[in-house]
């Protein structure tokens, strides 16, 4: 976390001088000096970093140069939008990807699984922004079923604004979530399929069949529990990277999430926001990895620490 904060801080510093962008060109020298001083940009880098670090430890990640609001608050306002988008997409990926992958793995030679596999290649290779535009064209412009931009109505929950709690919001959420999930669905399908095919060859599956268990029991208990381990890993990592980098989809659907915020901030070199954003993302990855590791131990008894029993 500390190492990462140094890298980010120096990296952002190296990108460019925000003063050029923030201060109107016709401001005179004195105004300029004052602005630089007010933002603390006159201090040497290590001093700036020191101030940042001390404040960060107190929960203050700095104020946005542009909005003059605490960067953290700015990001947290946008967070629910991105969060529900990413979780929705991941949820869909698991809900659709797992059964399809399972089917493709169990019947690798059927026409259905060949179609699924061909579809998953499309899901992998079509660029997100293009699929997003196509979705808008078909469902919003031509059919008029779903709205194409914004979050729609939101409802209050846990002190934050969420779209998925209202009908209108859900309709707005639909398309961006589908767009984001296409790649993930393909990923989960392929992962599940190869997992199933590998597991089906294992002796314990044959032994389970030799015990006279029903095919359903063999598939859903013996095979399924084994393939969940890699799927959980990848889905966890995917969830993290979606939250962090759903920029393209958010731009296409004008979804007011963190992705749009970070792009805007980078454009105006709003350093505190960029740094705070990256800090939050790193934090989130750490948390997600922790959760995945904890899930492991419930799924795979071999991972559990010895000595508990």
């Amino acid at each position, binding site marked *: 976390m500390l190492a990462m904060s140094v890298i980010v801080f120096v990296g952002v510093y190296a990108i460019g001088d925000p003063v050029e962008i923030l201060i109107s060109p016709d401001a005179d020298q004195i105004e300029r000096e004052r602005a630089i001083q007010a933002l603390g940009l006159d201090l040497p880098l290590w001093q700036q970093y020191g101030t940042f670090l001390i404040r960060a430890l107190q929960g203050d990640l700095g104020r946005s140069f542009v909005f003059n609001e605490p960067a953290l608050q700015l990001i947290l306002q946008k967070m629910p939008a991105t969060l529900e988008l990413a979780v929705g997409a991941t949820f869909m990926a698991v809900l659709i990807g797992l059964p399809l992958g399972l089917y493709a793995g169990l019947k690798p030679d059927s026409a259905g699984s060949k179609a699924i596999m061909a579809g998953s290649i499309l899901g992998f290779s079509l660029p997100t922004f293009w699929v997003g535009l196509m979705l808008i064209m078909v469902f919003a412009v031509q059919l008029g079923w779903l709205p194409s931009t914004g979050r729609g109505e939101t409802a209050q929950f846990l002190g934050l604004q969420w779209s998925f709690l209202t009908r209108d919001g859900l309709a707005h959420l639909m398309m961006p979530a589908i767009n984001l999930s296409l790649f993930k669905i393909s990923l989960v399908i392929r992962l599940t399929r190869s997992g199933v095919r590998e597991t089906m060859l294992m002796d314990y599956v044959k*032994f389970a069949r*030799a015990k*006279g268990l029903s095919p359903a029991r063999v598939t859903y208990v013996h095979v399924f529990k084994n393939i969940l381990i890699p799927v959980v890993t990848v889905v966890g990592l995917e969830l993290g990277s979606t939250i962090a980098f759903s920029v393209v989809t958010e731009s296409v659907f004008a979804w007011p999430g963190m992705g749009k915020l970070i792009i805007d901030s980078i454009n105006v070199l709003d350093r505190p926001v960029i740094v705070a954003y990256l800090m939050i993302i790193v934090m989130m990855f750490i948390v997600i990895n922790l959760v995945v590791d904890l899930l492991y131990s419930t799924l795979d008894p071999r991972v559990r620490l010895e000595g508990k029993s």
Partner: protein
Amino acid sequence: MAATLEVRNLQTHFFTRAGVVKAVDGVSFTVGRGKVMGLVGESGSGKTVTGFSIIGLVDAPGRVVGGEILFHGQNLAKLSEEEMRQLRGNRIAMIFQDPMMTLNPVLRVDTQMIETVLAHTKVSKEEARQRCRDALGMVGIPSPDERLKSYPHQFSGGMRQRVAIAIALLHRPELIIADEPTTALDVTIQGQILAEVQKLAANTGTSLIWITHDLSVVAGLADDLAVMYAGKVVEDGPVSEVLDKPMHPYTHGLIGSVPSRNRRGEPLRQIPGMTPSLLKLPPGCAFHSRCDRATPECTAPVELLELIPGRHARCIHPHLEEVAA
């Protein structure tokens, strides 16, 4: 006495891209009630596929294409998948070669045992658990209650094989197919498991098919012996007779390659050459290219011949002189 299992001219072929592999091509043998039948042969001779054919677990691209598997007179090759499932684990059980692989690593032992009970009988979970506990006790696992709650990785190899045997015994099957169950174990554990199985078979009247490549194992365990080579039974008969006076040159060579007290000091004999590819079997007797008694006539097909009462061999130049002696 009616035989528990009678296999007649079983043929199991694998339809691969490179051609048809005749893994099992004309295997016949009979297993009487409470008898132990040893099925011996080197790797790739079709022993395991024979076992899987009987229990109906040959996977694509393999298929049982011919012959009859009569289990108490009922032809298993003609049963539907569901009828077969009801037999499996219930009246016919199987024990696999590698105990490290046969138990599902992510499920507790009790889950894996109880599901076997519930697959074939309608009893309460508590009663099923009681049965599993008894079965574990029967195969010599101490403190079965505790062990039931463990995961497979908490067991040693020998213990896991005991668990697998306990699972096979849950429904007191009439036939157990044991596919090299002691090969992956230490010699000491091997001895324990063998003694255990022998005792159990004797107590419960269960018939056993013991698949192995280890002649010393069958010598002490089996009643009858069938020797397989390249998908065919080349010789069968009572175990002591076959081992003492082998008729088929292959069996002869096999026994000659095992150290013995009677030939102390002599170098061990070898069978020259190697097993032919099942895709390109030589015509006639598959062994003739490696056989020291082969003549041009050996390229013609040979049937399993009853050379002396109770003993068959698939050979036109058998070692009869020693049998007579």
